[in-house]
């Protein structure tokens, strides 16, 4: 054995034989089997919590219909999901003053226009800044890209992701859905929680509704 590894071992031994560490290690060793069960149950609980949260949101969230925009076909189908873009994915830059960084959380308030379609009317860094008290639906999103605030206001945009931009499809079936999305009107059914979290409930493609069956069929 080299001098270095001897030295490392000597160091490890002297540094890690502190009574507190030794005792902690002994406790963990004594409770090994209950701890195994605890780890397994906690990880299962995390997964169950994620499922329950989504199921609750789909069942109880306010459902709005959003028009899906035709997307750059190169981006539309990647792997096993369809990429969706909405009218509200691009907001006018002047809706939010000041600098924005990528990944920053923002809130966007939607209201229905006279034709009944949902449009972005305000945005802010908090639900209150987006005017949540004024009614409508507030969606939480993350900034994907934003130009400098001083850039020409008329053409400047903020690109926002709401977490509803991917629709996962069975392996190998993306191309068919891609063709339909380009050929016809597609509407997305989105459930929105009171905190602004959005969940994709389903799509209506060429008048046909594609929706997940419930987890526990009633």
């Amino acid at each position, binding site marked *: 054995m080299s001098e270095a590894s001897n030295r490392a071992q000597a160091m490890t031994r002297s540094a890690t034989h502190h009574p507190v560490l030794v005792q902690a290690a002994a406790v963990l060793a004594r409770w090994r089997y209950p701890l195994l069960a605890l780890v397994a149950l906690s990880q299962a609980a995390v997964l169950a919590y994620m499922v329950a949260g989504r199921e609750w949101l789909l069942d109880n969230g306010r459902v709005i219909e959003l028009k899906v925009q035709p997307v750059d076909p190169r981006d539309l189908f990647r792997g096993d999901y369809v990429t969706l873009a909405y009218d509200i994915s691009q907001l006018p830059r002047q809706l939010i003053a000041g600098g924005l960084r990528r990944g920053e959380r923002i809130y966007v308030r939607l209201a229905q226009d006279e034709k009944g379609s949902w449009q972005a009317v305000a945005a802010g860094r908090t639900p209150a800044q987006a005017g949540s008290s004024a009614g409508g639906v507030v969606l939480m999103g993350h900034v994907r890209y934003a130009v400098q605030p001083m850039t020409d206001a008329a053409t400047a945009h903020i690109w926002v992701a709401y*977490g*509803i931009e991917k629709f996962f499809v069975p392996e190998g079936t993306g191309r068919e859905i891609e063709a339909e999305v380009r050929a016809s009107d597609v509407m997305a059914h989105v459930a929105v929680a009171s905190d602004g979290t959005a969940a994709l409930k389903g799509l209506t493609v060429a008048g046909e509704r594609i929706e997940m069956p419930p987890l526990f069929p009633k």
Partner: protein
Amino acid sequence: MWIARRRLVEDLARWRSAGWVTAEGEAHIRQDLLERRSGASLPTVLGILGVVLLGFAAMSFVAANWQDMPRLVRLAIIFAGLAGAYAAAAGLFARGMENFAHAAILLGIAVFGAGIMLIAQMYHIEGHPPDAILVWAMGALGAGVLLRSNPALAAATALFGLWSGWETVAFSYYLSAPDNLVPIHWPLLPAAAALAAGFTLNRWWPGVHLVGALLSAWLVLQSHAVGGDTRHVIVALIGLAVTAGAIFVARANKTAAKTEAVVADWSAVLLGYGLITAYAALWTLQFIERPQTAQLILLAVLTIVLLLVIIFQGLSLGFRGAVWLGYVGFSIEIFSLYVKTVGSLLGSSLFFLVAGLIVIALAALAWRLHRAEGDVTWDEEHRHV
């Protein structure tokens, strides 16, 4: 490792019959050998590789998104896989097959990650991908600390690195802020502390090095993400400060009345990571940032002086790792300077100037080396008193 241990047990019996070791001493040494974790063996390596394959099988199962199978059944398979992996770990622990048990824990962590992906897919969640990695990393960290599992902690280290890197590179740029500044990704630091604590509790030294590597990479990455001209200078200064602090502590420790092996070893490690960080930043300043010729010469001279100081200090303190890092850095520096300057009018001249300095430096090094040997011997004797 295993052969060395068996050999030692045979030797112990011989030493005891020769009267060099007492029966009590032999019992203690045997107990100590048992407590020590065994190194990697072929079955362990195969077990870990098998688990990696099973983990990828679980993730491919998710990726296939098999619609013929009801979602409830897909979820049930993930939960069953989770329960099965940890139950297998319990069974293997009960049979004393520690290494295989840790492989089973690693499988449980892989299934946990596959479960997160499956749920994201089932509910069309796009969200913020690093958040999913963070949940996965926390699961691995919890398993690693509570079950004292080094493979789990190593997986957690990799996952935290992926999480922090993703946050820094893809999501944290102030794209439209006038000052073009990026917030430093501080949340990695508590995660690194927890990982280091877990590895220390397990007395697994390579794991602590893994966390050191994670922190060095984090520091260098932050400098690339943060805008402004001073970014690499700041990283270089942090690295130099750590290096200088480590040398100061090591020298003070060496000249103290009672030399502490722990202090000497920790300062050797800190010196190494400080040097790696400082050199990564200095290298970027010289060879990525396109400095002017005068700046390049100044930086190159500074770097070479730094590396020579490290080599000398490493020799006189008996830090073999620092000496080797110094040699490696020196070689990279000279080669990079050659590639950068060759072909330009000034290039050849600069290169030969540097080469001349190297020869002189090596001569000085050889002279110091001869003198330092006495130091090392003195150091070794002193340490064993």
